[in-house]
């Protein structure tokens, strides 16, 4: 087993926009891996990943009922969808940037992506 894996193998993500704020939810496929993913995908790592692209604070919230993390990033969308010069005005692709994070491989063998192509 490799020491690290791309987050994409353990979790999925979706990004949304409200004004100049982007949110990216990170959700492990296997709910048992929530604590592991939460320990790896920290606010600091996400803020560093988006450095230069996001100009405001990054906050992390948890949804314990569905085992999800939600990152809320301000001043993230070039002024918002109505005026941004960005090609991807909504930041739909921001979720995919988070999934590039290299994270420690999970402690147990379950949770690898190939189980999830249903």
């Amino acid at each position, binding site marked *: 087993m490799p020491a690290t894996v791309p987050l994409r193998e353990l979790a999925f993500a979706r990004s949304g926009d409200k004004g100049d704020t982007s949110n990216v939810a990170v959700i492990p*496929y296997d709910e048992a891996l929530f604590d592991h993913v939460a320990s790896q995908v920290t606010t600091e790592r996400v803020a560093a990943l988006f450095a230069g692209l996001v100009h405001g604070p990054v906050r992390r919230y948890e949804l314990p009922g569905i085992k999800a993390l939600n990152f809320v990033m301000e001043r993230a969308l070039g002024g918002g969808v109505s005026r941004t010069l960005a090609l991807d005005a909504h930041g739909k692709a921001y979720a995919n940037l988070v999934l590039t994070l290299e994270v420690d491989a999970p402690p147990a063998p379950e949770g690898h992506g190939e189980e999830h192509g249903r």
Partner: protein
Amino acid sequence: MTAVRIGCGSSYAEDRVEPAAALVEHGELDVLSLDCLAERTLTHAQLRRLADPSTGYDLRLDRLVAEVVTRCLDHGTRFVANLGAANPVGAAERTCELLARLGRSGARVAVVTGDDVLDRLGTFDDGSHATAVSANAYLGAAPIVEALERGADVVIGGRIADASLFLGPLAHAHGWGSDAWDVLAAGQTVGHLLECGTYLTGGNWHDPPVRTVARPWDLGMPFADVEADGTAVLSKLSGTGGLLTVDTCKAQLTYEIGDPSAYLTPDVVVDLTGVRLEQVGPDRVRVSGAAGRPAPATLKVLVGSSEGHLGEAEVSFAGLGAAERAQAAAELVRCRLEQSGVVPDELRVDRVGVDASYGPATPPPAVEPFEVRLRVAARSGDRSTVDQVLAEVDALYMYGPAGAGGVRRDVRPVLGLDTCFVPRDEVHPTVTVLEVA
């Protein structure tokens, strides 16, 4: 009261009409709600209305009436939509006119107005929007409840909040009080899950090999069977493509939210942290556990101000050294703009295929791209400034690095949107019921 079946017929202003028609035809729905607005699309509608005051409603209106509203009338399904966009009255009148032509005399069309607060913006704004050309408050479920109580078959509004389009009919059918916070929160949660249509059923999902979607060309729209206590089972028509799983529901539940313990809506503050999802069958997910707190004292208002024009121009480079030639072209354009004193309010240069999506946060490329598209975008209050920027990209045909080809240019007006909050008693939604002649 037995469960109420409510479906989603639209998730944005240009959504397909056929899946909505199919859902009404085969879904045995009590209600079809259609979310037709977002920040971007409300902006476009406002710009159309500014150009021609008789327009500004959903561009699909004629088709929706012919193919969806008529089916709703045939099946006894109530039709609720914010397709009025920037001109709900115009949309309702057009709907009545079309229904009359289609022989639907006696059908009742309610129009919800009052979201347009531009004329009173100065009374609650800090003065920073003196040049505003539009101001729309997010209305909640109450006017929909009123319209349905008054016998409306069709309810058309403007900036009614997305999920409230679903909460309104549920509150009406189940008799939920306007301070029954937990069930209102449950209804908003169901509305939030449904409002983005195919985001729940396999759209924005296919990512092989980790996730695959069956027959993605035939995704169905979702619907929910909602009990009086607010618990619901989400589903989609059998025979449609895609999937509806706990995971697709998780992705949609978290879409466009901030603090999940305080998801603000016009009707209730929703705590999503206790929401639970359970797969109860193929493409069937049960949702429960939302909690509610009293509605916010203020309503959100989207204020639009004219900010001039936005232009973009693109040009391709391909083959060996494509990225380097695109970079050289970008520098050439910058030098030309400096030389000629052209200074837009904002200028952006992307290399599509290299860094357009993530800008300075882009990881270094693993391999040299074989094809790169240079994109230059500019915004200015002065249209000619934008045109001059784009002309410099066009000139790369003759003055640029080797192999510059495929220039495309586009300029459009910008209605910049900002948010402010107004005391909710300053906003007065009004329901008018029209009867088709």
